């Protein structure tokens, strides 16, 4: 177990290192673009050169990278050229906002996905199974920006029930979270439902379930006590890995609703070639990806004692 964790940690550090180098090299393609973004498209060539010189962009790329890496390790993420404040000052509050949005969305997506998946998988090929399958294909086919548009036109335009933006200008408002959460849940629950359905259908064909039914146990009890425990192991992994996907969806949703979160931050940083901000966001993204994967693996062995770390 300890060896496993240590190896995972090593992989994570290595991955973060490679990603940070790749991102850095990638933004090297067009360094002058940074100056244009900061000074505006009508700045003169000399102004840009002076700005680049003053902000240390003319040093060799290797030095700039190493300097950034050194600072990053001790917790100094650098200065954001877009927001003109230290990166950590914008990063952490935004990350917390996204944590709230993503957490609520993931909770509901899992709840709906698991429930529908179990119902569908109880009788494979039955009417409910088909209904759930088609529904989940339908909802995963609607891109987030499209469902955002649909929901806005229904709840904001027609019914005038909910606010159409989620800027949270006057403090935190739960009402403004409803639409963004709905968009994320609609897009994400289908995949969880399909995976749960497959897992549940597989469990229902096993011998011990047949035995339990044949010995005359009530059907509900067979489902609850025998089938569910084993059927929910695989979906657990799926849900954990879904977090990484959620991060993509969050960008669109936050942009569409003007929610001030991590996704919108990353989008703005990319558009403005705000290199230190992008690097910090990329590191967070990789950290989340590797962490969820590790948690998924550990949780999997905990839920399924037949699997052991090798």
């Amino acid at each position, binding site marked *: 177990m300890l060896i496993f964790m240590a190896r995972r940690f090593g*992989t994570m550090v290595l*991955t973060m290192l*490679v*990603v940070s180098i*790749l*991102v850095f090299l*990638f*933004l090297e*393609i*067009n360094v002058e*673009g940074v100056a244009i973004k900061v000074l505006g498209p009508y700045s003169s060539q000399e102004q840009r050169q002076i700005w680049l010189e003053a902000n240390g962009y003319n040093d060799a790329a290797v030095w700039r990278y190493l300097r950034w890496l050194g600072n990053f390790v001790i917790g100094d993420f650098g200065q954001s050229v877009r927001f003109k404040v230290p990166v950590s000052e914008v990063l952490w509050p935004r990350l917390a906002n996204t944590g709230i949005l993503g957490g609520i969305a993931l909770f509901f997506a899992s709840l709906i996905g698991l429930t529908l998946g179990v119902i569908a998988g109880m009788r494979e090929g039955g009417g409910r199974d088909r209904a759930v*399958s*088609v529904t989940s*294909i*339908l909802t*995963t*086919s*609607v*891109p*987030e*920006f*499209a469902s955002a*548009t*649909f929901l*806005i*036109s229904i709840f*904001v*335009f027609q019914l005038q029930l909910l606010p*159409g933006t989620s800027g949270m200008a006057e403090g935190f408002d739960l009402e403004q979270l409803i639409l963004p959460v709905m968009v994320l849940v609609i897009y994400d629950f289908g995949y969880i439902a399909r995976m749960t359905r497959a897992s549940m259908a597989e469990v229902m064909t096993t011998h011990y379930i047949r035995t339990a039914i044949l010995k005359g146990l009530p059907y509900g009890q067979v489902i609850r006590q025998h089938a569910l425990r084993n059927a929910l192991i695989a979906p657990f992994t799926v849900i954990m890995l879904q977090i*990484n*996907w959620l*991060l*993509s*969806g969050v*960008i*669109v949703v936050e*942009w*569409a609703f003007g929610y001030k979160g991590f996704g919108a931050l*990353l*989008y703005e940083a*990319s*558009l403005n*070639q705000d290199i230190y901000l*992008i690097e910090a*966001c*990329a590191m967070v*993204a*990789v950290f989340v*990806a*590797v962490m969820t994967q590790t948690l998924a693996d550990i949780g999997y062995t905990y839920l399924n004692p037949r699997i052991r770390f090798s």
Partner: protein
Amino acid sequence: MTDQAVSVPRRESSVLRFARGLALIRESWVGSVGLAIIVFWALVAIFADVLAPFPPNATGAPMTLPGGPSLDGSMIHYLGTDQLGRDILSRIIFGSRQVLFYAPLATFCAYLVGIPMGLAAGYRRGLTDDVLSFFANVILSFPVLVLYILIIATIGASGSNIVIAVTFASAPGIMRIVRGLVLDLRNREYVFAAETRGETPWRIMLVEILPNARGPLIVDACLRLGYVVITIGTLGFLGLGLPPPDPDWGGMVSETRQFAMFMPHMAIYPCIAISSLVLGFNLLADGLREVSMRD
């Protein structure tokens, strides 16, 4: 003389076999519906010039409601006009060309890169596998959309750059799938036979292994096509898509979204178009999977 000695059953032409494979989809109604939707949009794209009532960039009265008359009163804007007075129906019809050109092209390029990587990693194993798998993991540990935004924001928004970005971001995923399939297939007898015959590794990979891995890959390609359509739409929505003024479904939503609170029709119809196309690909993939599992 000798080639006459053995009687080999005549093999049907590949075109015929392909058509027969395609006909199998009729067995699944989900797949048939999906195929019908895709064929519908393909026809719309091909005959856009005939079908569209207006030129895609011609302007008339702005923000006409659906069913409203055109400026000279001789024609009807069936789906209304956008903020610049361009006919929405015509723009959707012409926009289908963009999507149906770039999405298959980008998916094809991604497979062109991903398949050799997966074959090499799965067949050669060892160091090749380790290096390729590590880089695939690095790229896949990134949220996909972040990757797209980073690439497009740096190299600029254009059709060819979308193809490059999709290739770069999808190839690792394809590599992983191919690798998994190859790991299973490389231990088959026909592969050993080919090795004994002394065939070159690349010939074995491309001629012996790849055709036998095509089933899951076709299903995956269908799903991926749907996802690439979503990606192109999303990039358009974020303002990183195909450059204006030519119609692009995602871009149409992005331009008219600010009016969605009081004039939602301008953004809704392109959304319906893109969702239906993605639905077509997903249904087809599901149908193909169902049919391929049956036999």
